[in-house]
């Protein structure tokens, strides 16, 4: 096991290195000029060139990357070009919010997705199954903006049960978590359903039924744990997704997560921030997948990690 983890971590480092090189080079070849953005719209050409030199943007791309990597190894992600603030400060300020929302959202996704998926799978082909699956499809395909604003409008603006967006208390967390839970829950429902159907075909379920076990016990002890593996793999992916890509939900609910920072930075080609959030998000993907792989054998002892 320890060797397995060590090997996966080394792989992870290589992945991060690859991600950082690709992102850096892509940003380098964009037509945007960060030096001009920093120097301001009335700056003379000489001033822009001076800023370019100060930021090291006049160097060849490999040298720029080399410097970035060298600073990165010392824990220095650089300063935002436009906010002039340490990227670590900017990301650090938003990390707790992103983690909290990730937790809330995954909980909701699991509650909504696994429950609906299991119900549908157990009654395959029934009217309930079809209704649930159509509902799941609707949730998955609704734009984030629509779901978020609808929930906000009904439960916060109209009914007044929750604050109209914000951050700091548990009540602030509920609506964004449910929004993401509905959006992602649809996927979980579909995966759970097919997984349950797959398990239902297995011999051990027939045996369990033949033994006369009660239905609830069959579902909770025999079906769900066996159907859980693909769901766990999905959580692993979600961990990465929630670390950088939920811009709209964060923005509608005024949730100070990393997604918003990413979006702002992309609009302004604030390279140090873009690099920083890309690395954080890549880390989250890698760690999420690693955790999912580590958890799987605990649920299904047939899986061996090598």
């Amino acid at each position, binding site marked *: 096991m320890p060797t397995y983890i060590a090997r996966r971590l080394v792989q992870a480092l290589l992945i991060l290195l690859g991600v950082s090189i690709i992102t850096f080079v892509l940003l380098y070849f*964009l*037509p*945007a*000029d*960060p*030096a*001009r*953005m*920093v*120097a*301001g*719209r*009335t*700056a*003379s*050409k*000489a*001033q*822009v060139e*001076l*800023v370019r030199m*100060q930021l090291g943007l006049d160097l060849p791309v490999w040298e720029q990357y080399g410097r970035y990597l060298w600073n990165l190894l010392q824990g220095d992600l650089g*300063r935002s070009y*436009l*906010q*002039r*603030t*340490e990227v670590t*400060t*900017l990301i650090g*300020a*938003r990390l707790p*919010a992103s983690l909290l929302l990730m937790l809330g959202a995954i909980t909701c996704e699991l509650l909504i997705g696994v429950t609906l998926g299991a119900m549908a799978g157990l009654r395959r082909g029934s009217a309930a199954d079809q209704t649930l699956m159509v509902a799941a499809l609707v949730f998955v395909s609704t734009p984030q903006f629509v779901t978020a*604003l609808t929930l*906000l*409008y009904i439960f*916060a*603006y109209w009914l007044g049960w929750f*604050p*109209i*967006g*914000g*951050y700091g208390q548990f009540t602030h967390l509920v609506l964004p978590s449910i929004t993401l839970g509905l959006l992602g829950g649809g996927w979980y429902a579909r995966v759970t359903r097919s997984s349950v159907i797959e398990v239902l075909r297995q011999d051990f379920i027939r045996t369990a039924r033949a033994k006369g076990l009660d239905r609830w016990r069959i579902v909770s002890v025999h079906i769900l744990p066996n159907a859980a593996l693909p769901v766990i793999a999905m959580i692993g992916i979600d961990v990465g997704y929630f670390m950088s890509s939920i811009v*709209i939900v*964060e*923005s*509608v*609910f*005024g*949730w*100070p997560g990393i997604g*918003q*920072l990413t979006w*702002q930075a*992309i*609009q*302004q*080609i604030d390279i140090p921030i873009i690099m920083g959030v890309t690395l954080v998000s890549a880390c989250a993907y890698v760690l999420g997948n690693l955790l999912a792989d580590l958890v799987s054998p605990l649920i299904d002892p047939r899986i061996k990690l090598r």
Partner: protein
Amino acid sequence: MSRYLMPLLAGLILASPLALADEPKRGGEITIIYRDDFDSMDPAIGYSFQSWTPIKAVFDGLVDYKPGTTEIEPDLAESYEISPDGKTYTFKLRQGVKFHNGRELKAADIKYSIERTCNPKTQSPGASYYTGIIGCQDIIDGKATEASGITTPDDYTVVFQLTEPNATMLHLFALNFAFAVPKEVAEEYGEDFTHHGVGTGAYKMVEYTPGQRVVLERNPHTDKDGRPYIDKITLQFGVEPVTGVLRIEKGEADTLGEIFPPAKYLEVSQNPAVKGRFLTVGQLNTNYMSMNFNIKPFDDLRVRRAVNMAVNKQRLVQVLNNRGTVTGQILPPAMAGFNPKFQGYPYDPEKAKGLLKEAGLGDGFTTELYFQNVDPWPRMAQVIQQDLAAIGIKVELRGLEMASLFGTAGKPDGAPMALTEWYADFPDPSNFYTAILGCGAAVEGGFNWSFYCNEDIDARAKAADALADPARAQERIDDWSKIMIDIIEQDAAWVPLFNSNRFSLRSAKLKGDETIFTDIISQPFNFEAAWVE
């Protein structure tokens, strides 16, 4: 009788506190909603309409605009004097003004603050505004650390020597880049000064949490005829403007520091509940389409005129729910020098076709239009694409994110046509020329996206700006007015499209004279001038 008396009495009882509530009073707190973090609270760095008003609340300059007007009045200065040749500005400072850390402001602080903006280490986007002060360019070039043209004969006098007269100099002293910062604090925090800003302003910054909020508290030592009134102002970041409007309607927030969300415009503008609290405000803005003189066939005046006549601006503005006012000229109506009589090119597709034929392009041509890929730019681009198709010009649309658009359109052979807008940094027509139409800006990386350079016009512009004598101010504005009209009439350097309006929505408790909320200098309003009920 009593049937009529009762409501009357009730009316009187209700009316009396209302009458009192219209008097300014101290106290209370408000929340202002922003979508993104500011660029910076450091006056040398902040360069966005979002950060400018908060910076103005925390810091002061030698001069400032009277709230709700574009009229300059002394602020940190008590009085000022301009020499007859327009090259020497002498400011007498008010005594006893203190920074938030308790230290008294001295003339040396004014000198330091402007030198700090010139210093390339600061990377101030405003440095180029001060190159007219003797010595600032030397600091930029790394030849000096102090500007020889800024002297402090005593603690309360500061003198600026200019290389040449500059009629816009007082506006430049009113810009945040010239605001006073205490050297010891600025140097202690360096680039992190944005989070630890200390100024002399009416508000102290007591909290800056990136991604979340900036909190300002009333400076108890400031008293400008009773101003400021509000005790605490929270600037809340990261909230989608649509959500912000819902919060304002519910009284959970008080106004938007962002552009009003287009999606809510129709609903809110027709909502009787917010009557009197939803205002349409002119601003120093013109939306336009550049046509690059370096790229054929836009080197041909007839083609540029044809494009001007082919765009149906009225329909363009309708597509944007009338959130702007159609224009045919460069300067916005709120700017001195705007000529209300000048209509520009009429919408006349037939005449446009004729002009293309004259230019030998009777069969039309294919070109590209660049714009920013966020609403409303793509919608505008589509309307223009249809209009130009009607006269045979096939337009390919190129939507880019902001920084890439600036990079592409700023290249001499980058963008044949581009949609953009300009907000003036200060209320003077010169600010609508130098950076976007002047020869000096027709360079790679500049903002003169038409790469328009008419040396005759450039000379007239320079002459107008050298008219620094206050007695000849009107003459100077008239000169500018003619320059701006000639650029369109003779050269058709742009297609001026419309002046976009700002929309101001505020909560029921946020009070102030209407001019406070329609201020063209401070958006969403001058923090010093409003009060809460």
